[in-house]
């Protein structure tokens, strides 16, 4: 039973090795997302700051552009100072995840800028769309990594986005947006950071 030839000439040992490699790559991908848990927290806080500005401060049309620009600057600085993890981390799954987040992140910024520049910021459809964009990014990542906590985050984004098309007063919209941001971004980011800390502690213990 240990090393029989399969129909296509693949031995059992080779299949076991392939499965082990796939599991290792999935774990690397999750680890990579956990490493970037701080980004979820940072963007979640940015969303909160932008909403707070639109509610309490003047020049509300500048809230999103300024907050996104400031967040992008902080993001760039922190990422450039973060030590690179070499070797196997640059795998195919990681490449796919980078593609998902870079494209959807860029798309959200493009969409928001177009909404603001064209004066369509009063339509409820645009805030719902932003929630759906975030749900899409989390949903694709969860599917690629086969990671149910991120699937829950995606469901929260989609659920709040759907609800936003039904509850359309300004207060309800804000409550839904802030709920989605808090649960789907900040709480998920903190969870990812906690996972990373656990993994780092495990690595330190293993080295000791």
């Amino acid at each position, binding site marked *: 039973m240990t090393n029989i030839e399969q129909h296509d000439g693949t031995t059992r040992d080779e299949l076991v090795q392939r499965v082990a490699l796939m599991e290792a790559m999935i774990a690397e991908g999750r680890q990579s997302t956990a490493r970037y848990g701080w980004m979820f927290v940072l963007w979640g806080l940015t969303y909160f700051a932008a909403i707070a500005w639109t509610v309490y401060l003047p020049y509300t049309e500048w809230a999103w552009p300024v907050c996104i620009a400031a967040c992008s600057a902080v993001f760039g600085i922190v990422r450039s100072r973060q030590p690179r993890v070499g070797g196997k981390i640059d795998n195919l799954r990681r490449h796919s995840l980078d593609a998902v987040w870079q494209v959807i992140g860029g798309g959200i910024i493009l969409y928001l800028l177009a909404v603001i520049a064209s004066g*369509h910021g009063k*339509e409820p459809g645009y805030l719902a769309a932003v929630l759906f964009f975030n749900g899409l990014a989390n949903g694709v990542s969860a599917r690629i990594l086969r990671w149910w906590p991120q699937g829950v985050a995606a469901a929260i984004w*989609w659920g709040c986005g759907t609800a936003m098309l039904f509850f359309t007063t300004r207060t309800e919209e804000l409550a839904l947006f802030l709920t989605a941001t808090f649960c789907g971004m900040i709480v998920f980011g903190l969870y990812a950071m906690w996972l990373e800390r656990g993994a780092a502690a495990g690595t330190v213990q293993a080295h000791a």
Partner: protein
Amino acid sequence: MADFEREDGVTREELVQRVELMERLIAEGRQTTVRFGWIFLLWGLIDLVGVGWDELQPDFRWVWPITLSAGFVLQFIILALRRKGGYRCGGSMRGRSVAAVWRMMGLTVLLYVVAAIVQHKAGQISYIAAILMFVGMAHAISAVILRWWAQGLVAGVWLAGGIATFFVPRSYVLGVFIAEMCLGMVLFGLYAMWLERRNRSGIKGE
């Protein structure tokens, strides 16, 4: 030059093997997209039928629910027939990632469209633009994963259409939507099907 050891112990032959493996995986991923070119064609035509019917009977509220349901039924039937004929989705990691992107995009658009239709908000500019952006993002992610410039071009067309929707006069929005369906769905679907036919005839020729 043929087999010298590098500083990190990786030989030239190993590097060549890795590059070949990566190129093969990318080709497999593209092959998966090409095999499903008919889905782009199908949904392009379904959406065009929906737009046409909506123009003819603007007061009939069941246009889009009926059209979209018919699209799903047709897709399900064609998929089942192709599976019987021996077609399988590519099992490579890139293929699975691309499949994940399109499945999640489909789910997202479905939720968004159903909620907007139920609440009669489907006429908002930001809603129409968001649908074009969803599809554009899915194409862009696939293009980056597969390093496929043709799909990147299609993504650009979708994203540009989504942005243009905000700025063109209201009467032109339908024209933008139809142009997107023709260029980004029907034409890309036909291109993918042509690629698939060429690949299959190449395999038979070998």
